[in-house]
């Protein structure tokens, strides 16, 4: 009797497991379909609901095409969000050349190279490239930015030099179905779900759309709309989210023990290609708030990494005839302690000082 009872018990267990897996699959498919329809980040091109946060790389590519249609840009600003406040108009006023700010979030050296090549492939003839170099842009132990890996045009621009993550299955990422699967997989987050709900809510009540924190002007220049309004209203507090800002900055250095050889090669390649295109290259080490510098010095190897970055920058200056600046300390460009939006991002006043200091080096 024991064996038939065991077999029946096993049969019920298998049925339960099958029901669980079937329900999970169904719920997953329903979720993926809902995300595809709502498309909160505009990744699937569904276009039924308004996207909330377009991918910054795609957004800058879109802006660049429109900007280029109005007249050929001759100057390009590269770097991370710390370079987004460098004003193309200020540079144009001083040099007479049209600039576009193509700085993107969390830019690493591979982003700069990919963007430069993509811009060149659009037919732009550049006279000047200004690269804002973060120390972490040469991180030796982190993955390339996910939105770079997801960007087909930029990955194509990198060609065989395109970086991959560190997993065994990374070579598979080149295949279309795998990319599609990854795009759906990345949508399985509580943030995507929340944003999808917000996107639906906004389409139902467009007036409820809040003022965005970040917005780009047609030349790629960044406006912090919400913070600008808070400053006007006198409600802005630099330290409102300082703990998170500091720990996020620290996290960017997780595992970084030195400068990545691969990323140094990317940057050198960019410089070399620009020089053979007849383009002048300016590299500046981006600035951090003194509080952040102190915090990073206490919790990471930032001082040594900064020294390595300076040495690397000097090597570029010597070998590749690149104009280099070290603006890691605000004093180096006469920046002020109040000229910050948060612990790593300069405001318009400090950005003007950076620009003036860069122009002092006659680009």
């Amino acid at each position: 009797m024991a064996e038939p009872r065991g077999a029946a018990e096993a049969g019920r267990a298998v049925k339960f497991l099958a029901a669980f897996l079937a329900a999970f699959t169904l719920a997953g498919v329903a979720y993926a379909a809902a995300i595809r329809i709502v498309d909160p980040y505009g990744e699937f091109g569904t276009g039924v609901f308004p996207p909330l946060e377009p991918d910054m790389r795609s957004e800058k590519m879109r802006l660049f095409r429109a900007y280029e249609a109005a007249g050929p840009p001759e100057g390009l600003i590269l770097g991370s969000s710390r370079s987004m406040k460098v004003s193309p108009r200020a540079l144009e006023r001083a040099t007479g050349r049209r600039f576009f700010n193509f700085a993107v979030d969390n830019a690493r050296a591979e982003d700069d190279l990919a963007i430069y090549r993509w811009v060149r492939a659009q037919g732009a003839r550049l006279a000047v490239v200004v690269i804002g170099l973060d120390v972490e842009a040469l991180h030796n132990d982190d993955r390339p930015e996910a939105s770079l890996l997801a960007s087909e045009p930029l990955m194509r621009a990198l060609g065989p030099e395109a970086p991959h993550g560190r997993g065994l299955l990374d070579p598979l990422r080149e295949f279309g179905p795998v990319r599609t699967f990854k795009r759906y997989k990345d949508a399985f987050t509580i943030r995507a779900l929340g944003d999808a709900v917000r996107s639906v809510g906004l389409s139902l009540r467009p007036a409820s759309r809040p003022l965005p924190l970040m917005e780009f002007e047609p030349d790629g220049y960044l406006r912090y709309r919400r913070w600008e309004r808070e400053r006007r209203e006198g409600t802005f507090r630099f330290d409102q989210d300082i703990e998170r800002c500091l720990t996020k900055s620290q996290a960017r250095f997780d595992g970084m023990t030195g400068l990545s050889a691969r990323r140094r090669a990317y940057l050198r390649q960019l410089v070399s290609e620009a020089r053979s295109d007849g383009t002048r290259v300016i590299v500046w080490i981006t600035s951090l708030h003194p509080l952040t510098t102190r915090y990073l010095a206490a919790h990471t190897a930032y001082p040594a990494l900064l020294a390595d970055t300076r040495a690397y920058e000097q090597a570029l200056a010597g070998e590749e005839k690149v104009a280099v600046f070290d603006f890691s300390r605000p004093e180096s460009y006469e920046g002020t302690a109040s000229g910050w939006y948060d612990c790593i991002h300069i405001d318009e006043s400090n950005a003007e000082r950076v620009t003036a200091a860069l122009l002092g080096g006659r680009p």
Partner: protein
Amino acid sequence: MVFNSNVFLFAFLPIVFTAFWLARTKQQRYVVLTLSGYVFYGWWDWRFCSLLLFSSVVSFTAGLMIDRSASTAGRRAWMLSAITVDLGLLGFFKYYNFAAANLARLAPDWAPPALAIVLPIGISFYTFHTISYVVDVAAGRVRATHDVFEYLAYVSLFSQLVAGPIIRFREIEDDLERIDGPPREDDLARGIGFFVVGLVKKAIVADSIASWIDPMLAVHESLSVGGAWLAALGYSLQIYYDFSGYSDMAVGLGRMFGVHIPQNFNAPYRAVGISDFWRRWHMSLSRWLRDYVYIPLGGSRRGEARTCFNLLFTMALCGLWHGANWTFVAFGVYHGVLLVAGRLVRPAVAAVPGGVKRAATFLLVVVGFVIFRSRDLGMAGEWLGRMFGRPGGEGAVPPSLVAWVALGLTLVNVVPETWDLRFGTRLRWAPLYATAFLFAYLFVNLQQTVFLYYQF
């Protein structure tokens, strides 16, 4: 590898589950469990698999030799040899640099050099597994197994390998002996239920609270009085939901493979005294320390003074077991003192209402977790100082954290402990488990974090 990772959820677990249930014989299933345990462990750093194997083989061999020894002295010698090897490994990997650094402060000329030692993950847990086995064999509480794969499967069982619960061989011996049985619907359903509840606790509650308090504690110098209390309450909730979530997942995984892992948490924040708290918090560690340290020291059988010493010593060891840092020692001693004090004032507080005792116990536990969480004693002093009114910090008090703490406190006081939930085992419950799992996964996929107890 961690339970809340894509590779575990969608590759490792399905493969091991399928291989296990396709295997028919005991030996095959032991081998599947052993190999999966080593893959799980080696995913972090494969080099330390040899250490796990070495420790397992030493205790397995010692068990056999104890079994064969005719004399008590012989049994004792084999037992002590195995314990010495196990504690030697634990001492070297976990405490060598701590000892060297402290000696360097006291007597620089005598201090050995600091070494670049990587702490093998889970060493504290599997060392306690192997020690409990040889002690139990020597005491005649369990028969030494002659099946090496049965023993390797016990030590390397991936569900409890790196962060417990600390299981004794005798607790799962019957399950291992019957490992070749067919799957059971109630085990599978409850296993999935436990696993999903654990994932919800970890991914939704613990990690959400952590995302608020970690930044605050990173700049603890700026904590305000309110912020210091909120961070302390938040961490107490985070560690409970993190570790009890992990334990629930371990229990659930065990059941999926027909192994019944004992309870590790029993609503600890409803305790009405510190001794009651330790009967409810990390129960497998408390039981281990009681049976293998406190009682062998004499327990409460040798008079009041000796009992107090035994309590203090056991709890100091409990603290040190968590890590090589004076904060852990202080945490253990603090709880030892509370246990002693509780013993001494027990008659006086007998008439105090249960609600008051419960609230007081919780506050004392929260203070203990401040010491536990601190990077060093200086941070603990500063944090506690802020909590008790020392002015200075002006850091913000995030409203979201207030909401999470309020929710967490409500849940720990109202919702039954996972072991008291009556998991449905009928087919109609499967969609509920699946939906809860998917919802928890939305948090997991946003940010994959390591369990707090992985560091111990």
